[in-house]
Every structure is written in C-alpha cells, then in structure tokens.
C-alpha cells in the first residue's frame, strides 16, 4: 500500500486516476481505517486530502457556506455563522460518534461512506446541499439526494473526489432540525433519522419546506410530498399529519436488530412531525 498526501486537488485527482489498483480517499479516516483494520478494505493507494488547505476550511459568503471535504465535525459546531444558519445540519453532524470521532470524522466522508443510516445526510438533503465533485475532466455538482445510489455506493466515478459540501444562504425566518431514534442517548446508529428545513414569511406561513429521511430505505431519501404538505400552512395539526403520512409512505425499510419494518415506518412518521415542529419553532425564533 502507498500513502500520498498531495497539496492540491489536481494532484489528488491525477494520483487517483493513475492508480490501477484499489484506491481510497482518506479524510477523517473513521470509516476507512476501521475497514482496513477489519479486512473490509485493502487499498493499494491511500490519498490523504487533509494537506490540501482549500479543503480544510469552512467559507461563508453571500451565496452560502462551502464546507471543505476535510473539515471535521467539531469545526462545524465551532463556526458560529454556520451553526446559527443551519442548526439542523450541525446537530446531525455532531451526533456522530464521540468527542474523539468529532475531531476527525468529516461530513463529506459521512456522505461518501454512503450508508443508508448516515446521520448527516437527511439533514443535508433537507438543506438542499450540493456536493462539488472534482475529477480529471473538471468539476461537477451533485445534489446530496442524488449522491448515494445504494448501500455503500455513490455516484463517484473512479478518480473523482468530493471537494466540498455547499449549503445555500439563509433568508430571514428559516431554520432546520434533525433528530434520530436510537435505543440509547449517545453513540449509536440511527434506526430512523429525519431532517426538516422550513422557510416562512414574516407572518409564520411556510413558504418552502424539505424533508430528508434516513435508515428507512436503501438510500437516504428526499420526500417531496412531506415538504409539500407543510407549504402554505402555519404548521397546524392537519399539515403535520399529512407530512407524517407522506414520510411513512416513502419508507421501504428492512427488518434488522435495530428495528422492525413496522416500527421504523411508525417512528418515521412520529419523527417527521416532531422535527418539522422543531424546525418551525426555530424559524420563528422561539428556540
């Protein structure tokens, strides 16, 4: 195995494209090094992207936030503007693992690991986040809801890397939230995860809403009908019930040790209501 730590995206992409064997990208390493340790991954080449200074920063301008692919979870919580504009995205990332894991694991890596149960992905979907992907032919943009194609697989082609996750700027009266169900309070894998983002007018009427679901299908989902159920309302009970029904309708979960199919579907509905209400309260400045 070879280890490279290039200083630019161009070098990283060229090294990946030139590698005839199996190559893996190292950001936080909290998935990759465990896979190597347990024999699930035996790469011939590791490309460490943390020496690419452009990828280690969170940038903020009028168009929104650009989170470099090598930015760790702890950096998100420390970024005041990001935490205040996108509290749901930040809480979803900070739910992952321990303090030690937060010092390494990256949201971009959480997306690229392509787990159906990744905590940050439903929140990123709700936030309409877009991944910037670099390859030898240049860069392309991929909406986060289109990124994961099946458990463990993504749209990334050989030689491509995610360089950043991009979140739009926030208008007034907008916020988001993420919650998951796990059987304990810390450090577990989501049985169901729900992210909701809402925008309202000054009167509290919802003008836009997106709902992301995790751990209830082979990939994290954008549930357009669940978001649509909220638009035009002030989040009355009827809107919440419609949102929950749409979320439950979108589920196609598996039975496993973490939860049965019926349980996951029921929890998806309950969480959709709870998280929508939380995002709405935040958008109204009530929390």
């Amino acid at each position, binding site marked *: *195995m*070879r*280890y490279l*730590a290039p200083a630019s995206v161009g070098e990283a992409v060229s090294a990946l494209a030139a590698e005839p064997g199996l190559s893996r990208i*190292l950001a*936080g*390493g*909290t998935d990759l*090094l*465990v896979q*190597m*340790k*347990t024999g699930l991954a035996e790469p011939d080449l*590791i490309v*460490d992207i*943390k020496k690419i200074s452009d990828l280690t920063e969170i940038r903020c301008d009028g168009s929104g936030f650009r989170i470099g692919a090598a930015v*760790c979870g*702890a950096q998100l919580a420390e970024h005041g503007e990001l935490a205040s504009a996108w509290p749901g995205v930040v809480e979803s990332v900070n739910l992952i*693992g*321990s*303090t*030690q*894991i937060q*010092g*390494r694991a990256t949201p971009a890596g959480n997306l690229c690991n392509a787990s159906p149960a990744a905590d940050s992905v439903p929140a990123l979907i709700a936030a309409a986040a877009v991944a910037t992907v670099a390859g030898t032919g240049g860069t392309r943009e991929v909406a986060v809801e289109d990124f994961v194609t099946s458990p463990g697989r993504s749209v990334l082609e050989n030689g491509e890397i995610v360089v950043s996750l991009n979140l739009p700027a926030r208008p007034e009266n907008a916020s988001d939230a993420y919650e998951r169900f796990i059987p304990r309070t*810390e*450090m577990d894998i989501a049985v169901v995860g729900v992210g909701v983002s809402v925008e309202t007018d000054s009167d509290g009427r919802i003008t836009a809403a997106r709902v992301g679901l995790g751990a209830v299908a082979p990939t994290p989902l954008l549930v357009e009908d669940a978001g649509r159920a909220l638009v035009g309302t002030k989040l009355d009970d009827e809107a919440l019930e419609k949102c929950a029904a749409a979320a439950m309708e979108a589920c196609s979960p598996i039975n496993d040790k973490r939860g049965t199919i019926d349980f996951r579907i029921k929890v998806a509905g309950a969480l959709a209501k709870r998280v929508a209400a939380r995002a709405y309260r935040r958008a109204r400045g009530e929390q």
Partner: protein
Amino acid sequence: MSKIHVNATVNGDAVEYLCEPDESLLDSLRDRLGLTGSKEGCGTGDCGACSVVLDGRLVCSCLVLGAEADGRAIETIEGLADGDELHPLQQKFLEHAALQCGICTPGFLVAAKALLDKNPDPDETEIRYWLAGNLCRCTGYDKIVRAVMDTAEEMRR
C-alpha cells in the same frame, strides 16, 4: 512496502521515525517511539484508550495513520506529568480511586485534560458527554466524573 519518514513534535520534542504506510499512529507511538502509555483497547475508535491530542484536537490514535503525523504536534499521556510531579488530574484520579485495572486511564486523562483546556468549568453533563468516547469496565464511571469535577474546581482556584 517502503517505509515513510515522519518528522513530528511529540509532547514538545521533535521526533522522527520510519513507519509502514498502513501503520496506525498508536503503533508508531508505541513501537517506534517507545511511548507505551497510550493503550490499544479496541483498535477501531470505540474505546478511547489510545486518545491523544493531534494539533489541538482530541482523537483516537488508532484511527490516525502514523504517516499522517508528519509536520504535526501530538500530545500523549507521557506529557501530562511535569517530571515527578503529577498533573492535578492524575492526583485526583488517585484520590478518588478513579481507576482499577488502569488500561482506560491514560485515555481518560488525556481526554479530561483536553476538556479542561477548552472549558475550565464543565458541569457534570458536559463531562459525561465529553468522556462518552472513553470506555471503562471497572469503575462504573462515577469516580472518574467526580475526579474530573474535583480537579476542575481545584484548578480554578
């Protein structure tokens, strides 16, 4: 496999070592530098016994490659005491009997110091969440939490 030449700073001292490309920082610290205070419990980032501070961030050294440490600063349990004088956390762990077998202890101490460096006045909930990545099978955690709270109080005086 050709070895990788690494220059790093460990507990304030410049060090250099040769490591395999797939070797963990934990193995480099223990086997190349003889710093055996950091322990391997799980090797997969679950137990925290190998906790070190890398460029100011608490991490599991089993989830870092030795090669990644090039040009970076690492603090390990060996840097905690000042010569023969124990760090206040070490002293309080003794006084509160916050250890039994001791395998988890270096990780707890490094993690607790990282917390107190960041927040000199944590409440019990903050301490319990911060230390949730460190597993102890002997003490039941309560004595560890009391020791950290007591240390914080003493260090604030």
